[in-house]
């Protein structure tokens, strides 16, 4: 199969959507003339015109609000919020409006928007341009949250988001934009709420989110040389969350590590850990371990940022201490 980068896979999914569905339009800051802050939408303005690739002023709340209004009228808006750190600026529209409109209207209305965003941890962007905060949305019924880790997942999850009648927060990782992987040419979908076993194993389960999938796989390869067999599971969407697949893996291995770029306190890992305890306590042979970022804002200094980031070494350490105990 041909290989694309993660960024190319997203670009292809977006472009195909614009070609195939006249109800699809893009709206966001610098997505047109500038080509997107990460060049994902480069040349789209020339190809599709200003009505379908709408450059906006710096107005995050109005970007999401306008997407909601257009979606209520039957269009399929894809809004881009340049950095995940800017999501709090439009959190009101996303959490209070988009996620609740269906419920508050007694099911009369639906809001089929996609909000694309990315996090830039590991690129020396400092505390306000690097955050990964998906756990904030676990408490927002009505939203769906997709976190693709591979080019294949990026295209498949995006195509699924296009079909979904609910607001979907689609979180990219900018460190992954150049990662390559196989991507079919046709428009396939990956169902939401279906985790993917990225690598099978017997001794320890690592539930890895977004970028951490790659760190977990790297750790698993290193540990394999020492005779350890690590299973790596990627939930792919955290809302809905495929807890059954995680439980099945825990039942097999008896040990689990949850790896994420979010802060440890109240992260997605905390929720997954709680669910494992609720549903599979008897299968655990060791305490659940979380490999996450520390509870401090992200430092700018590149060396400090590297120390801050969860990585394969921290996963290996966690595996070793789990097996010792």
């Amino acid at each position: 199969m041909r290989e694309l980068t993660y960024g190319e896979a997203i670009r292809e999914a977006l472009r195909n959507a614009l070609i195939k569905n006249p109800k699809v339009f893009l709206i966001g800051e610098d997505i047109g003339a500038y080509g997107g802050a990460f060049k994902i939408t480069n040349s789209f303005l020339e190809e599709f015109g200003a009505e379908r690739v709408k450059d906006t002023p710096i107005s995050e709340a109005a970007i999401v609000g306008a997407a909601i209004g257009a979606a209520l009228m039957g269009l399929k808006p894809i809004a881009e919020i340049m950095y995940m750190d800017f999501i709090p600026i439009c959190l009101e529209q996303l959490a209070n409006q988009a996620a609740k409109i269906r419920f508050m209207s007694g099911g009369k209305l639906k809001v089929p928007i996609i909000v694309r965003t990315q996090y830039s941890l590991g690129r020396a962007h400092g505390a306000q341009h690097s955050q990964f905060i998906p756990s904030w949305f676990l408490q927002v019924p009505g939203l769906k949250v997709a976190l693709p880790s591979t080019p294949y997942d990026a295209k498949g999850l995006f195509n699924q988001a296009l079909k979904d009648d609910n607001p979907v927060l689609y979180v990219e990782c900018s460190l992954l934009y150049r990662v390559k992987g196989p991507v079919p040419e046709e428009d396939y979908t990956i169902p939401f709420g279906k985790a993917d076993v990225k690598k099978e194993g017997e001794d320890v389960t690592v539930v890895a989110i977004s970028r951490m999938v790659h760190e977990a796989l790297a750790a698993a390869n290193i540990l394999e040389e020492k005779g350890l067999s690590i299973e790596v599971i990627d939930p792919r969407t955290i809302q809905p969350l495929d807890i059954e697949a995680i439980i099945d893996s825990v039942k097999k291995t008896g040990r689990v590590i949850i790896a994420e770029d979010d802060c440890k306190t109240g992260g997605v890992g905390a929720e997954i850990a709680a669910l494992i305890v609720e549903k599979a306590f008897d299968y655990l042979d060791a305490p659940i371990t979380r490999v996450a970022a520390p509870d401090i804002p992200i430092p700018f200094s590149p060396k400090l940022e590297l120390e801050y980031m969860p990585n394969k070494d921290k996963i290996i350490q966690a595996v070793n201490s789990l097996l010792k105990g």
Partner: protein
Amino acid sequence: MMEIRFFEEKVEELYLMKGLITGPAHLYFGEEAVAVGVASALKEGDLIISNHRGHGHALAKDIPMKEVMAELFGKATGTCKGLGGSMHVAISPERGSLFASAIVGSGIPIAVGVALAFKYEKSDRVIAVFFGDGAVNTGAFHEAVNMAAIWNLPVILVCENNMYAIGMKAEKAVALKNLAERALGYGIPGVIVDGNNPIAVWLATKEVVEKARKGCGPTFLECKTYRLKGHGIYDQARYRLRDEVEAWLKKDPIINFKKNLIGLNVLSESDVKAIEEEIKSELEEAVAFAQNSPILPFEELKNYVYA
């Protein structure tokens, strides 16, 4: 307008006397001319977006009184199946009342998106969004008005300046004499209208709606009116001065409009009586309907979270 007034009187009675309506119902006493004036100026296919003070908008858009009342009772027969309540009663897309946001200012960007869709689909439809004087100080307002202006969108920004944002007087919250002056900063027209005169509101809205329909973009329409009661049904509004209230009571839109119509021989006293009787009996039916309606089973709630 009388329908709205009698409805609100009944809501107040049911809340205060009988405890049948609970929650923070925000009454529309005194502002009836705005909803009626704007709604009458719109055509089929046009839409409105309402806010937390939406009973008047709902009734002006001809949403059946019994559905509105049932929503206030939290019943499954209400406009939102009892999941929206007073602050969302005006959700009835089939009747041109698209949505109601209870977060101050937040309906405005959504209205801009609706207008964007109208333009995208090359239709000549128009949307009017209602908001109070408090909303003009939110970020959502500024972002949305700017966006509507740069894209020349068919949205009528209907500011119901009822002089108070809960207890904060508009004149203390904004350092401008008229809120409509805000429009200048965004390069769009700001129109000031007597919000207690339904004909004035109707004429002004008609004009700006036609402009928007022809592609001339948004207008900020400041309807100067007065909230004759507190912010919510529970609020005694003791922060208002007696002289101020009395002066505005003299400008009551319904009393004055009735007087004018009778003076001009459009209506007779007995016509007015007949209208009143008709509304009262409809209101009694609405209350009985709401009281006798079922509540949505709790197990069904999860069906409304995701589409």
